[in-house]
């Protein structure tokens, strides 16, 4: 590799130069690496190098302990319980809502709906808005969406006779904003797009697209699964009406997600799941809904996960999202440079790491992505291979599968060096 080891890339536009303090720099290691117990594991005789953070991030000890503590001390169902444990469980659950509101700069916690994950949030958004839609209405998506932001719309379009349109990509893996005026029409009711692409890494100009969509009267939804926990994100500044994300991709527990909305958008949303917790009054033949957000939270939620997620938010706060963002830009820039050293290896998405989230997808013409991932695993390096739940995008790229390395706060240049060495090893096997 011709990349200078431990180059800090301070010259990157938009990235703060590294402070160079111990534990504060990719040169010295990741941020809070020692707080993630799973990272102490060996895999196949090698130190685990976890580079599959876009699928799920690892959990710090504090999150694991908080979830265990919930079951050890507080476990009860939420809302309307009169006993002490129920009161505590409810307080823990509602404090998660308040913490998420704070994280995104949302003034009212009621603007935060607690769900099972990004997929559940996007399904709620799609089907909850369906009663505002008529046959022939248009939904604008993009060519880079995850299946979670494609398939609910396909199902809804089939049911309601809607037309799906897709904002095309530019050659460098951005969205073609030049095509936006013609893609938006008087029939466009909803625009839904990835904040950060889970394959290309591209961070989309969400606010700009939202402003154009709003001028047409459309509701704008962001799939922020790859953004929250990785960069500073202010809900109002994003310009969207609804924003979906998961806790587990932001160092929190699995089975927990959120749909954050403007009061107007949430008022237009109809519940899509019905049962306990979401009602106001019920007779045998009639029911009225509870207030927002509870009307969207039928059944028993994942209280343990909600009780634990604030510990992840504490970690993000302690590290600082600006610093996390800088760290990921440095890692991404370093990885992009390192991968350029392999001939016959194509990296997708923008060249400029400041335009990308912390992930790099690539195609090696010498080693199929599945074989690459298998051989990297033999060296303890965990990456993902496949279509990453984005088959249409892979069709657009002309490949059936890519390999993807995605970064978290605990990753360092050493991890990327380990990956690069393992790619060289895989190529030797296939030479």
């Amino acid at each position, binding site marked *: 590799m011709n990349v200078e080891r431990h180059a800090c890339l301070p010259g990157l536009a938009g990235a703060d130069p590294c402070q160079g303090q111990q534990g504060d720099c990719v040169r010295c290691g990741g941020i809070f690496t020692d707080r993630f117990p799973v990272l102490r594991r060996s895999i196949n005789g090698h130190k685990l190098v976890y580079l599959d953070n876009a699928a799920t991030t690892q959990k710090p000890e504090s999150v694991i302990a908080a979830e265990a503590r919930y079951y050890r001390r507080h476990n009860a169902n939420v809302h309307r319980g009169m006993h002490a444990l129920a009161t505590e469980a409810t307080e823990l659950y509602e404090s998660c809502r308040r913490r998420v509101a704070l994280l995104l700069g949302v003034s009212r916690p009621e603007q935060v709906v607690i769900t099972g994950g990004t997929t559940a949030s996007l399904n709620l958004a799609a089907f909850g808005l369906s009663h505002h839609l008529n046959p022939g209405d248009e939904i604008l998506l993009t060519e880079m969406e995850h299946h979670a932001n494609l398939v609910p719309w396909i199902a809804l379009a089939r049911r309601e006779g809607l037309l799906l349109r897709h904002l095309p990509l530019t050659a460098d893996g951005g969205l073609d904003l030049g095509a936006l005026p013609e893609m938006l029409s008087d029939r466009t009711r909803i625009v839904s797009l990835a904040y950060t692409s889970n394959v290309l890494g591209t961070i989309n100009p969400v606010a700009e697209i939202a402003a154009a969509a709003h001028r047409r009267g459309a509701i704008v939804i962001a799939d922020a699964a790859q953004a929250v926990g990785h960069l500073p994100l202010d809900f109002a500044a994003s310009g969207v009406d609804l924003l979906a994300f998961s806790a587990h991709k932001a160092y929190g527990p699995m089975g927990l997600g959120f749909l954050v909305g403007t009061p107007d958008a949430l008022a237009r949303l109809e519940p899509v799941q019905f049962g306990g917790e979401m009602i106001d009054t019920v007779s045998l033949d009639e029911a009225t809904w509870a207030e927002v957000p509870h009307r969207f939270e039928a059944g028993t939620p994942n209280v343990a996960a909600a009780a634990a997620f604030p510990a992840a938010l504490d970690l993000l706060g302690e590290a600082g999202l600006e610093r996390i963002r800088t760290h990921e830009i440095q890692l991404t820039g370093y990885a992009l440079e390192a991968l350029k050293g392999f001939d016959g290896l194509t990296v997708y998405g923008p060249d400029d790491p400041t335009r990308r989230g912390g992930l790099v997808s690539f195609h090696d013409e010498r080693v*199929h992505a599945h*074989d690459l991932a298998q051989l990297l695993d033999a060296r303890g390096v965990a990456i993902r291979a*496949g279509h990453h739940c984005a088959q249409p995008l892979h069709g657009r790229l002309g490949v059936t599968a890519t390999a993807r390395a995605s970064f978290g706060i605990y990753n360092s240049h050493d991890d990327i060096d380990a990956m690069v060495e393992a790619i060289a090893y895989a190529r030797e096997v296939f030479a």
Partner: protein
Amino acid sequence: MNAGMDDLYREVILDHHRSPRGAEKLAAHDVEASGKNPSCGDEVTLQLGFDGERISSVAVLSRGCAIATASGSILAELAVGRTLAEVVRLAETFRGHMRGDIPELPDALDTGDLEVLTGVRRFPARVKCALLPWLTALEAVRARGQGRAVGVSTTEV
């Protein structure tokens, strides 16, 4: 190599992957079937030509990993000269073996290089790669039996 990689990527497998047999489209064929593994995106198209009851020509057009490509290449080697019933028996035996239901591949079946794919069983996520061309062959046989010229299967195991 380590971590069982020499079991998975044996030299014979790598050789089949580098120069797969039957990788050329047939000028004419009697039946064609395609299969894919939805979870990983691997695809294969199989073409068979017959001389009476016996398979006289095979094309296995793979778009997938080394294991899927090598398995398809081995299939191309083994299928020529066999009857459909013999191919079914071979495919079903191999499937049973890879899924752990049949401990050994019987010598009587003349399984050729198939034996080298046995190491894939240690990697459960990859068994579907090895089976893809064989399950597609079973689909081709089904299509042939129903008088269809084209079969399509979605193959997840």
